[in-house]
């Protein structure tokens, strides 16, 4: 094997797989308990240390807004957690959607790590939840979503708040798959400058501009030590950083992830890809997400609204980007599509 020399040789990076959480978006929340167990078991055997398992919207995600999954979060976690030989099961908690009651119940089912997620300017909606996760003894991450919408100094300030609330790790989260390597570096560096040395930094990418791997490497160069990805890229939009590809790049660069590359490749090819409803890739609409800076989860919702109201999905996505809609505002997709349809004479106003 060809070897390359670089300054990252020997660096340790902790991988966190998202295909059973972010991947739920790409599967319209329709992953069965059996499939969850099968995927998680394969990832556990491949040495992936953290596996996120919940509804795509995380705890409290089951809703008309975000779709109803085939099973409750408690059922998924309870089925997966006891089967894990080494991996920790993690969950996503977005304050305003999920609550501490739900975190307690996820913990009771076996979850031991949590991403407490807020929009990148609203960290101060998370103190209760981060403190509670710490009280439960969980591995606790503050997860700053849509990080391209805040500048490096702003991200540093928000990350510092999360550290103060008790987060062990702060993530730069490129929910729109919009960022370029220098954007990632600047934000991770700004965090590294203000956070305590023992506080870890993570990066969560989306592959909408094909930058998932390059961005993750840039994050590591700037000091990140935790990387989210998903095997075969099963995630919202054009998917997350494909984990097996990233693991291969790390191996070439001498970055120590501790995972078994070939086992990950097998899981991707033999288990995940056959599960996909559509091939998760950079297509016209997911590219629009990355290009316009729109939340990746909006992809399938926009396609459905496009079909229903006759306004192209790309037009809807661009308008959502212009209106600066953020994660969680999925209702505004239909609202925006209806308003655009009225303007185009495709839909009539309701009158008394």
């Amino acid at each position, binding site marked *: 094997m060809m070897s390359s020399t670089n300054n990252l040789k020997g660096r340790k990076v902790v991988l966190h797989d998202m295909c059973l959480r972010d991947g739920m978006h790409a599967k319209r929340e329709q992953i069965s308990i059996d499939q969850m167990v099968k995927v998680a078991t394969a990832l556990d055997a491949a040495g992936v240390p953290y596996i996120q398992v919940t509804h795509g919207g995380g705890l409290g995600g089951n*809703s008309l807004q975000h779709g109803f999954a085939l099973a409750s979060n408690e059922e998924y976690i309870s089925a997966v957690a006891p089967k894990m030989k080494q991996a920790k099961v993690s969950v996503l908690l977005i304050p305003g959607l999920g609550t501490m009651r739900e975190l307690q119940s996820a913990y009771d089912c076996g979850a031991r790590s949590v991403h407490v997620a807020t929009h990148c300017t609203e960290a101060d909606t998370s103190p209760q*939840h981060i403190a509670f996760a710490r009280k439960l003894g969980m591995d606790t991450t503050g997860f700053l979503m849509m990080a391209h919408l805040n500048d490096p100094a702003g991200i540093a300030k928000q990350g510092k708040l999360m550290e103060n609330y008790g987060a062990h790790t702060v993530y730069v989260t490129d929910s729109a798959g919009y960022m370029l390597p220098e954007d990632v570096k600047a934000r991770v560096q700004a965090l590294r400058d203000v956070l305590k040395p023992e506080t870890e930094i993570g990066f969560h990418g989306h592959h909408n501009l094909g930058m998932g791997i390059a961005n993750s490497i840039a994050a590591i160069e700037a000091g990140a030590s935790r990387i989210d990805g998903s095997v075969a890229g099963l995630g919202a939009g054009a998917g997350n950083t494909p984990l097996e590809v990233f693991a291969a790049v790390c191996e070439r660069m001498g970055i120590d992830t501790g995972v078994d590359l070939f086992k990950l490749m097998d899981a991707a090819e033999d288990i995940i890809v056959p599960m996909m409803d559509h091939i998760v890739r950079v297509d016209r609409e997911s590219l629009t997400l990355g290009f316009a800076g729109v939340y990746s989860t909006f992809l399938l919702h926009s396609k459905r609204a496009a079909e229903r109201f006759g306004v192209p999905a790309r037009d809807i996505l661009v308008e959502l980007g212009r209106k*600066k809609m953020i994660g969680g505002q999925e209702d505004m997709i239909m609202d925006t599509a209806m308003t655009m349809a009225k303007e185009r004479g495709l839909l009539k106003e309701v009158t008394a």
Partner: protein
Amino acid sequence: MKKIRCALIGSGNIGTDLIYKIQRSPVLEPVWMVGIDPESEGLARARSMGLKTTAEGVDGLLPHVLEDNIQIAFDATSAYVHAENSRKLNELGVLMIDLTPAAIGPLCVPPVNLREHADKVEMNVNMISCAGQATIPIVNAVSRIQSVGYAEIVASLASKSVGPGTRANLDEFTYTTSNAIEKVGGARKGKALAIINPAEPPMIMRNTISCLTDDEPDHVKITESILQMIKEVQKYVPGYRLVNGPIYDGNKVQVFMEVAGLGDYLPKYAGNLDIMTAAATRTAEMFAEEILAGRIQLKAVEAA
């Protein structure tokens, strides 16, 4: 004409906005504002608007309640101190309008159940939450036509309009609002979601209401009921506006609303704060009208 004299507890955004609304009321008069920080901007503004102020919390107000004939108090402090505030003022026969998520009294959404509370002379009524005020009328407009098994609301709020109290206690907001969707909205199960959006210029408050009816929804009757309810809310919140819908998909009814404020103290985008102060003022007015007409009389609540 005689007016009912009021005290405002809490000198933040909500309390200050209330001064403007109460000053315009034909039946209410703002007399006292209670704060805890002598340097607070809210107390200074209240003084400049002609109110008496104290920075010693509710205890600073108590000696003046009887001599100044305070009959209604609005509490815009926090869930944690509300119970104490309410107990002390109720003992003196003051009606408490609770704008915190404490919800120790019955939940009130004016066009849905205010009349009922006034008739019973409740001494503490709770205004739920901004999202509750903005969405429960619509849930009720559906459930009064057909039974609703599940109702879900999504409130999008401008970041600048969400104060530190709400931010630090988002779970309470979720629980209080979800519960009220059931109790007042009439859905068997309720769920509330909140999104805080920092866009500049700030977005006007948006609310999406979705109801699942048990049987196939009667489109004509439900649409008519919703449009009628919107008119009722517009009587005290003129900026309450239907943007899209009602739209039907199987048993699902969805309505997309916008709430622009009056821009009294808080900017127009802060419809979430405005709808709380407007609903609280409307509630106090209904009680005041009844008191002035001699139909009801407030009674001191014995300490338990």
